[in-house]
């Protein structure tokens, strides 16, 4: 059994350096903030490698046919992390990149939380926390009933895991032994008011999920190789749903945003702040 983050300390688990692609994706997120002057930057940077590996290496999809029945379903349950999703969906061709520059604008399709039916590639409207896992369970049960081989991925937050509905869903997924369901938790240990340890401690987090009937793996959520190898070995245990607890850093990659609660959400972002953010990213060859 792997040790929980509390025992080993989160910092020891998160040591990955960002590569050029990860930095480029972050620059694009900053450019979206520059265009809209607002957004949840901390969550987007925390999630970036999780979403990148899903869309680069794991998910089956056809961006020209977003409703292709054979696609894997990916639900971003922590909808406020949508900037990470949007830059990837644009890059993969689900919608033109020009939409990114209309983030939260009245003539755009991309809102501050993802909306089903408006944004090609978005499987469910999220934003209010605690909804995505149950929706994902329904999708996974449908696949089982229809003997389809698509898989369902649901990305949830640590603060989101305060919601009772997450644990109702966890019991349900465990009961149904949903092998085709994988939850990824963005465990950056920061929620809106403060650290998860002071607001609502989730530990022993991995043990909780195990006790609900999940196969559990813990990874450095910014280590692309580690994420890839965990996601390539699904299901983590036979006849069980999987959960990958991704130890992450809120605002990862930006020296001024990392673990800085002010960057959970910002509006009226100034040119100076944009310059600071761009300068704060690591230099990568």
């Amino acid at each position: 059994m792997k040790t929980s983050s509390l025992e080993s300390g989160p910092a020891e688990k998160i040591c990955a350096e960002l590569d050029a692609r990860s930095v480029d994706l972050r620059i694009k997120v900053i450019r979206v903030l520059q265009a809209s002057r607002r957004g949840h930057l901390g969550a987007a940077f925390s999630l970036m490698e999780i979403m990148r590996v899903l869309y680069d290496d794991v998910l089956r999809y056809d961006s020209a046919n977003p409703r292709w029945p054979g696609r894997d379903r990916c639900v971003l349950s922590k909808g406020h992390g949508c900037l990470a999703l949007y830059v990837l969906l644009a890059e993969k061709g689900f919608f033109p990149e020009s939409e990114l520059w209309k983030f939260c604008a009245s003539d755009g399709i991309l809102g501050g939380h993802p909306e089903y039916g408006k944004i090609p590639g978005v499987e469910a409207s999220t934003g209010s926390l605690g909804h995505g896992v149950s929706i994902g369970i329904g999708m996974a049960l449908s696949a089982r009933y229809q003997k389809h081989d698509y898989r369902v991925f649901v990305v949830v937050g640590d603060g989101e895991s305060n919601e009772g509905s997450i644990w109702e869903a966890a019991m349900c997924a465990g009961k149904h032994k949903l092998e085709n369901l994988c939850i990824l938790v963005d465990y950056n240990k920061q929620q809106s008011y403060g650290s998860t340890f002071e607001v609502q401690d989730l530990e022993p987090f991995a043990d909780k999920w195990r006790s609900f009937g999940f196969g559990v793996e813990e990874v450095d959520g910014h280590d692309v190789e580690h994420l890839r190898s965990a996601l390539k070995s699904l299901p983590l245990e036979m006849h069980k749903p999987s959960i990958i607890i991704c130890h992450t850093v809120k605002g990862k990659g930006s020296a001024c945003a990392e673990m800085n609660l002010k960057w959970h959400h910002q509006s009226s972002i100034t040119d100076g702040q944009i310059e600071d953010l761009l300068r704060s990213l690591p230099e990568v060859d």
Partner: protein
Amino acid sequence: MRKTCLDMLCRLAEKDDRIIFIGSDLGYGTMERFKAEMPDRFFMEGVSEANVVGMAAGLALEGKIVYVNTIATFITRRCFEQIVLDLCLHNVNVRLIGNGGGLVYAPLGPTHEAIEDIAILRAVPRMTILAPADADEMRRLMPLTVDHRGPIYIRLGKGNDPIVTVDHVPFTIGKGILMRAGTDALLLTTGVTLRLALEAAEHLKEHQISVSVLHLPTIKPLDTEVILEHAGRVPVIVTVEEHTMIGGLGSAVAEVVAEANFQSPKRFKRIGIPDVFPEKYGSQSSLMEHYGISGEAVARTVLGLCRLSQYSRR
């Protein structure tokens, strides 16, 4: 009414493999036939309404038609956000079947009395609300719920109610049904209080007052056309419902009538449960009588308004 609803659902599911049933820890033996015949489409989940409604949304997003059944208070209050976001925002084909709409569970107290279910669901875009009057009407409406686009709430009244609807009038979602035509007053009602409105109309006949009874088994979308057509012809309009007077049928009709700006004056009254948590136990009918929801009380209200109307015309 509940038995008819679930029996119909079983029959519809036998013919349509898109239909899925989810119960939330229902009574032992419920839907046994469905479970035996279609086990892969039968789900009995725990006491977890939020998860059940989200799960139903996920199944519906994959093209299934999902019927969810539990007690009306739990399926509306406990998981309200899942109803708003997972069902209505996504506009999915999930049908919520709420047992015990109104004061059916009077002996069990306010935790089980669904007296504001219509009000809270009426405020949510894309929700369709159905409240049939008896088992026969339930039998006629259930087939229509299969291919209807978007979420539906089906309010189950108390079973074993006398049959007051008629077979030759087809059920159409969104359409009111004129049960009786009159010239002095209009009674508008929904669900099982149709019986009381018809009783009131009989009482009033003895007083030479001729009453129209308009049954509105679809509360949303409301058949405003038929309401205006019949409201325009009479001086007295009264609504009757087994629901709080805030936000239910009476409010909905009041909104329509107030905005119609009729040339002739109208006397208007809502009959329903006042803005309280029911303070007594007893039975459904004893509580309804306590709140003046009975054929006789409705007749008295209409009579009073008709006299007032005649007096002011002299």
